[in-house]
């Protein structure tokens, strides 16, 4: 490990998650931010940088910071979809390293389940070349990738189902998880067809919810009660916007973002103890594992077979139950960070991965469009 201890995650929290009628996105973010500050042992006045991503306002940072009564010295509204929050962590670490601020608040909130936002733009611009064909997004785009991967490598629906089943097993160990019933491979294979080859149980949940993450400098982090979770490496990239422009449907920009994160951290894939990998769809995970170099291209199906990612398996992954079974309010990336932090602090009781020292967190946004990778280390 070569990375210096510069910045750490010092506080995490979810808001209410699941079906939350009667709460708006600002309430959810305020609730999560307050809990994350309590978790860190910091107060609102300690925050000097604000990060959020959403499509619920024309400039979400302005509305959120005003609502919370914060006038930040640093503000970042990077929105690259579900991986935005891993990018925010990277940007926060860079800002702290540059001496621009000491404590950053990263939040997300969504009422995707009870009150979906209908952000419409005046013009679809380049989407005009895809909208007329009726592909349901995002699922149809991921289906195109899955179909290509199956064609190129012989990946099967059973192998994709392994991911859904293993993730559900983790959810059953998490009292906050939305899904409470166990499933078998057959249940996934018999669930309703959505867009071939993806079926209902290959797809993430649609829930409400919010989350918050506090990132602090070494100076601040070392004075707090809980042990800091160090940001050892990060990387980000995006390769396209719409799916027809993805250079290779079987390779995501995780290849670049992951490579940079591993290099910065000075560690290798086999040193990771626990992985939190964005699971908007089962195929998202499979492509990501390959692109991050946990296995070779085309070997993702074999890698996840035999419930290797389930509790007790030799590659613990998505230990909160994931976007597939725990919660998925539109842009899920912040919840990956929350779970990885709890794992590295040893706060996960029955789902705790023993001796978890190094965690990989990986967000994917859009239609396999953007990726950001963060490598975290316990104190």
């Amino acid at each position, binding site marked *: 490990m070569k990375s210096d201890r510069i910045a750490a995650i010092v506080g995490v929290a979810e808001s209410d998650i699941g079906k939350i009628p009667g709460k708006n996105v600002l309430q959810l973010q305020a609730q999560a931010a307050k809990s994350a500050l309590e978790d860190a042992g910091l107060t609102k006045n300690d925050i000097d940088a604000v990060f959020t991503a959403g499509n619920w306002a024309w400039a979400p940072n302005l509305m959120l910071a005003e609502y919370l009564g914060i006038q930040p010295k640093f503000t970042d509204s990077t929105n690259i979809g579900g991986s935005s929050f891993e990018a925010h962590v990277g940007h926060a670490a860079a800002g702290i390293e540059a001496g621009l601020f000491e404590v950053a608040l990263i939040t997300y909130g969504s009422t995707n389940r009870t009150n979906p936002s209908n952000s419409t733009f005046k013009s679809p611009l380049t989407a005009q070349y895809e909208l007329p064909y009726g592909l349901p997004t995002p699922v149809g785009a991921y289906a195109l990738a899955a179909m290509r991967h199956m*064609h190129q490598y012989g990946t099967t629906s059973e192998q994709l189902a392994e991911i859904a089943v293993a993730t559900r097993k983790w959810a059953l160990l998490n009292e906050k998880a939305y899904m409470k019933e166990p499933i078998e491979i057959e249940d996934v294979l018999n669930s309703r067809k959505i867009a071939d080859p993806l079926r209902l149980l290959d797809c993430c949940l649609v829930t409400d919810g919010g989350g918050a993450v506090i990132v602090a400098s070494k100076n601040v982090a070392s004075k707090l009660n809980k042990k800091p979770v160090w940001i050892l490496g990060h990387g980000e990239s995006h390769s396209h916007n719409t799916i027809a422009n993805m250079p290779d449907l079987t390779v995501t920009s995780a290849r670049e973002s992951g490579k940079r994160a591993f290099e910065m951290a000075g560690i290798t894939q086999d040193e990771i103890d626990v992985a939190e990998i964005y699971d908007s769809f089962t195929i998202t995970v499979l492509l990501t594992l390959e692109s991050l170099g946990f296995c070779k291209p085309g070997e993702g199906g074999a890698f996840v077979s035999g419930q290797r990612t389930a509790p007790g398996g030799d590659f613990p992954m998505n230990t909160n139950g994931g976007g597939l079974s725990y919660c998925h309010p539109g842009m899920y990336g912040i919840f990956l960070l929350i779970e990885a932090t709890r794992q590295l602090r040893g706060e996960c009781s029955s789902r705790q991965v023993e001796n978890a020292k190094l965690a990989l967190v990986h967000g994917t946004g859009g239609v396999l469009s953007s990726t950001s990778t963060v490598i975290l280390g316990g104190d």
Partner: protein
Amino acid sequence: MIKDLIHSAFDEESKPFWDGLMNEKLLIQYCSDCHQYIFYPRTICPHCFSEDISWQESCGNGRIYSYTVVHQAFGQFKGDTPFVVGIIELDEGVRMMSRIIGDKEQIAIDQPVSVVFAKVENELVLPYFQVT
């Protein structure tokens, strides 16, 4: 109306493409500096930033790069299911999204396809593809 989804995006940059379809021509672009084809339409080459770009008629032939049979669709496409959306790689090397029509049994990745000009609405022709 499908056109309602997209007509606000019709501008000088995209108009030749849509007008071409009304005349049963699939127009793509070509960069005279780096000798590569371009789709979707732009005023600057995404490969080399040249502005020396011209419109050319595509041969209309290509292969299926990937496809999906859609069983659950939204909005005005709800009633069309099941239908097939694919990414077509034209012989010129560019890729575009399209509907793939015809016998579903014949549809497979790498199958050769050719363009069919589908008048989906009075004022809208789309380039669909079918297996050749």
